């Protein structure tokens, strides 16, 4: 079979990029990691590969770009079908996984970002919002080892990268996710035992340093 060329346009700290890294690692796919310097300058290449949003991650397969992290994860699952299925096979289970993936994108990310970008009442509201979301997700996990059940899958991939950012949220928001959602932290540790996850996630301390830099840069101190 001819070699297929896979490039991932990404930024080391992006939880969305981490999702795609994990999916590629789960499937054992070799790829070239191309780092975008989002702190300073977006490259012309990124604008060409994602003209609509100009955002990472972009998965480029044989020259063709796939944008939006969860769309890329589904694409990977469909192209490399033979190994490590990421989505469940039952349509109802798939719908649940997609629903919660969409929930994470709409709610978890926004609340988290506001925790480090804002202060006072707005920050407090975002913190409450984030904890509420994490509790709902914890409820969805229940007593399963993974969101996907016995096997690690799509929804685990959608959420676990936020672990890289939890230390930052907790530090700025002054709270502990483990205290609020112990089962979720148990699940995180289980995921981190997998090489595909531990090798794909950014170091939480480095993420915190990045946020300090960004706050300074944008006058958010």
């Amino acid at each position, binding site marked *: 079979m001819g070699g297929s060329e896979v490039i991932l346009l990404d930024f080391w700290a992006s939880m969305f990029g981490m999702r795609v890294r994990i999916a590629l690692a789960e499937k054992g796919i070799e790829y070239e990691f191309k780092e975008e310097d989002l702190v300073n300058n977006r490259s012309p290449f990124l604008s060409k590969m994602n003209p609509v949003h100009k955002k990472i991650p972009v998965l480029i*397969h044989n020259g063709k770009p796939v944008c*939006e992290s969860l769309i890329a994860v589904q694409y990977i699952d469909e192209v490399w079908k033979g190994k490590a299925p990421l989505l469940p096979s039952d349509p109802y289970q798939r*719908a649940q996984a997609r629903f919660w993936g969409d929930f994470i994108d709409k709610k978890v990310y926004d609340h988290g970002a506001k925790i480090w970008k804002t202060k006072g009442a707005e920050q407090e509201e975002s913190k409450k919002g984030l904890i509420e979301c994490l509790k709902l997700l914890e409820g969805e996990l229940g007593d399963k080892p993974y969101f996907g059940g016995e096997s690690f899958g799509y929804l685990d991939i959608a959420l676990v990268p936020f672990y890289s950012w939890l230390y930052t949220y907790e530090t700025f928001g002054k709270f502990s996710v483990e205290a609020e959602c112990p089962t979720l932290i148990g699940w995180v540790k289980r995921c981190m035992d997998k090489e595909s996850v531990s090798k794909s996630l950014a170091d939480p301390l480095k993420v915190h340093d990045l946020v300090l830099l960004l706050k300074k840069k944008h006058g958010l101190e």
Partner: protein
Amino acid sequence: MAEEVKLIRTWSSPFALRIVWALKLKGIEFETVLEDLASKSPLLLQSNPVHKKVPVLVHNGKPVSESLVILEYIEETWKEKPLLPEDPYEKASSRFWAKFSDEKLLPSVWTVFISQGNKQEEALVPALENLQFIEEQLEGKKFFGGEKIGLLDLAIGWMADMVSVLEEVTGLKLIQEDKFPLLSAWIEIFADVPEIKESGAPREKLISKFQAIRDAYAATK
């Protein structure tokens, strides 16, 4: 075995309408449960406790929420008359543009119609840009799905009646035929598809509704 398919919706929700279209195109019998969002039913609250929104598809007692998730569920459960292409790249492309329609295109068009004066002029810029992206997707195609109507047509289908209603309410022609020839042509043939034609909300009722919304926004300035 009898299939029980219920669709919880409101009379005017464009998100719910896309589900009506999908069910009709696939020839699936279903029962409509009309919801009054000012007074949400126990069924809705039970079926979509996370967002408490319509549409919700309840299939044999199991609820699925979020219209794009529901469309994929319908596609995967009733495999006849497919709405998505087989090719993973084309599938990813449909998903990308469906998401774009909901997250960027619709909100930008909506903002144009609830704004007045200068604010409306400013709002036109991103709306026209977004429409241009969609226009380009129709290059060489009859429908967004190609020769036949597909998931992306259903996702963007809100344009077919909502835009002309909004244009009538505000007197602003957003989709000018010389600027958007492909989109203009698509709106006509899409609206003409029998399953689409027979499903729309009464035009006069939509006009009254949007007139009232626009007046309310103007009053708050």
